[in-house]
């Protein structure tokens, strides 16, 4: 029995405990501890479906096999990343370590999309640390014009969402844009002052 029903965007908050989902997974071991070793089969199956023709079918045992393979992949890469951190006397595995390990183990093709993904994530993180929600919506309209002229990259425009376009600021640094000097057309000083005054909404993930 799975401890998680299938949802499109299941987050960490949803797979605690074991809800009464009537999903039948492996016929043998059905306890939750066993399933904690794998990613949910529904999610795995959904991703698999994306790359086969629409009239193709996927057997349940192949989904289970891929499930196991993914867990092994995670362990494999994590092990390498962990070794690297140990060698460099760091305690925390970060995203760059993962990407490094993935490259080292032969999955170089993944690196491009992953770096893009990670940089977007860090952008949002940097914004969240410095910009309260009210400020975001106000600044959003101001900066949208500069944003579009400034960026020729095909990174999705976060301005269309809750987060404001001060990604311009955070782009120059990892997480703390307020420390960076800026050479942007608009006046960053005003923004920085506003940012620093209201840093009370820091709800980032931080370290797990």
């Amino acid at each position, binding site marked *: 029995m799975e401890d998680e029903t299938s949802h499109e*965007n299941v*987050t*960490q*908050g949803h*797979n605690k405990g074991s809800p009464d989902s009537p999903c039948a997974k492996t016929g*043998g071991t059905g306890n939750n501890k066993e399933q904690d070793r794998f*990613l*949910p089969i529904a*999610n795995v199956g*959904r*991703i*698999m479906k994306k*790359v*086969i023709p629409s009239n*193709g079918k*996927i057997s349940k045992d*192949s989904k*289970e*096999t*891929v499930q196991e393979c993914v867990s*092994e*992949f*995670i*362990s*494999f890469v*994590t*092990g390498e990343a*962990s*070794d690297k951190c140990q060698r460099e006397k760091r305690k*925390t*595995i*970060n*995203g760059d370590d*993962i*990407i490094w390990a*993935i490259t080292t*183990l*032969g*999955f170089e*093709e*993944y690196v491009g*999309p*992953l770096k893009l*993904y*990670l940089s*977007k*994530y*860090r952008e*949002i*993180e940097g914004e*969240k640390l410095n910009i309260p929600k009210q400020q975001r919506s106000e600044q959003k309209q101001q900066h949208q014009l500069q944003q579009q002229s400034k960026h020729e990259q095909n990174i*999705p425009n976060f301005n269309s*969402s*809750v987060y404001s376009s001060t990604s311009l600021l955070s782009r120059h640094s990892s997480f703390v844009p307020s420390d960076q000097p800026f050479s942007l057309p608009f006046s960053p000083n005003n923004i920085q002052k506003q940012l620093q005054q209201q840093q009370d909404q820091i*709800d*980032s*993930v*931080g*370290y*797990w």
Partner: protein
Amino acid sequence: MRQAGTYSGILSGGISGKTGPHLLPLARIKKIMKKSGEDVKMISGESPIVFSKACELFIKELTQRSWMVTMQGKRRTLNKEDVASAVMATDLFDFLVNLVSESGEATTPLEMDTSNYS
């Protein structure tokens, strides 16, 4: 713990859907990471995020290769043997060879010692 709303932009595909939502549960990924070794203690918040994407790419690649085997057999249902064949045929998936050759047996403890894989 984290609030789901914090990442609703990413998770629900609110970022114009181009990055796509996180298809895989981050806490589960983190659990699996921690189980990979005694040395794994601290994991940054972004690691499961990176893995979420990496696993998606991995699943897609593995499935594509498996599907090619399915098609060679003129079938329309991807089964476990197709996955095993794809693993055997791909050097990149050498670390999975033991896993797929255990078909039909109970899941035995796998070697987590990655030093053997290099």
